[in-house]
């Protein structure tokens, strides 16, 4: 059995999570979380860490607009996703909530605009 300490990133409170893992790396128990989302985070973080990517995407008129993945994607794919975002041009009229890239890297998450142009 292994112990692992994590800082929960779900909310700004930043709980310190103490996780107990079995030899296969599977989560047995969590303590220190002040809400159930902390347990979910610990579970993901120990098996398949997930992150929301926030960035900007260049528009056809040369300006940039802010964007994010609609849900979190595997942490290991973050830099890959950035490459896709960097090679995409959004329409010059993009509006908040518009989907810019559908199902990025097959993660199921879309890249959506988070502000208006």
């Amino acid at each position: 059995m292994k112990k692992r300490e994590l800082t929960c990133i779900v909310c700004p409170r930043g709980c310190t999570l103490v996780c107990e893992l079995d030899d296969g790396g599977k989560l047995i128990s969590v303590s220190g979380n002040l809400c159930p989302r902390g347990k979910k985070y610990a579970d993901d973080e120990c098996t398949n860490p997930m992150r929301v990517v926030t960035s900007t995407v260049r528009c056809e008129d040369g300006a940039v607009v802010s964007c994010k993945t609609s849900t979190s994607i595997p942490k290991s794919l973050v830099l890959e996703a950035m490459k896709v975002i960097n090679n995409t041009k959004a329409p010059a009229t993009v509006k908040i909530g518009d989907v810019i890239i559908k199902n990025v890297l097959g993660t199921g998450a879309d890249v959506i605009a988070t502000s208006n142009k």
Partner: protein
Amino acid sequence: MNTKAVKEINCELVVVGGGPAGMAAAVAAYEDGLRDILILERDDNLGGILRQCIHNGFGLHRFGEELTGPEYAYRYEKMVRDYGIPFMTDTMVTGISKDRVVTAQNTKEGIFKIRAGAVILAMGCRERPKGALNIAGHRPAGIYTAGTAQKFVNMKGYMPGREVVILGSGDIGLIMARRMTLEGAKVKAVCELMPYSGGLARNIEQCLKDFDIPLMLSHTVVEIHGKDRLTGVTIGKVDENRRPIPETFEYIPCDTLLLSCGLIPENELTKDAGISLDRVTNGAIVDGDRETEIEGVFACGNVLHVHDLVDYVSEEASIAGHAAVRFIRHETSKTVNVQVKADGQIRYTVPQKLTEVAPTRVYFRVADVYRDKKVVVAVGDKVLYEKKKQKLAPGEMETVELTDKMIAEAAELGGVLEFKLV
């Protein structure tokens, strides 16, 4: 020289600043039935600094979901627009007088004056500049505050540099470490003068650890190198008096130094109006209504004290918005004068005084990292409130809910309410 008259208009409520605080204050006033409101915003759109904070983590308290900065701002912008609350963008307020005459200017109206029934100050804050740090060495290009770099990258779409060192571990610095990394830069280190970070734990986790960026606590930049563009910095460890230890000096080649060394409420207008500031918060001294020394002038958001969460900014701004409406309608009954005193371990409280007997949430910040302490609110020897805390840190704002009973008791027993850690 030619002259042109300065137009004067009247308005029941003028809100200075159209960021999260100003918009939330205006929305709260509108929801109380006030219609004669004017928001004055210096930038070209509502939203304030949130527009460039494109990362997520906003809104969990306020909206129950995780939003990015622009999305959070847009929620309020939409309310302002849907309600039809009047606002002017690209409009700079240049002065506020004691009798609530606001001087402003924009390209359409030129310089004009507004006689306001009430004024809400919501100008936000700015970053501590490099000069204040007084680092030795050259003065090349490539040194920016984290917020300026954030503006270049997120709003303008330009890269300030390729190899980055960050001084200060405030949240904007941590966020920019990740942001620069995602845009292809190499962030070599984040140096923090203090033995702890001023940023949120989650940001250290997801902005630094995720990308193996070292956080060097008790370290500072001692020298800047490079004549035209930055070529490197010398960093060093500091002793307990925060003095650099020469044996630990280390040269790091880099073309960019970002500074995230604290935020300062932007209170030039407040000072010009003759309102005295709290020496610790650098914001106005206010009561539970967020009313300043000048009757009918309120302050909220980062201009009052620097918040770590925009959700709290909105909450505080609503308080000011509602209070301003009560002031305009002569519904305020200020019957007591209770001073709220912080013991030093508690650095400050907002509000700093209480004038109404009503349930009041007091925000406070501690001076250092403390473990297993009790937060105590007392009048003389009499303890009115206490709560155990596992961990308290300067980066995280805390709150205490005062009941009307506690305030009445404090008023009766001498009028000084002490906030302390034991």
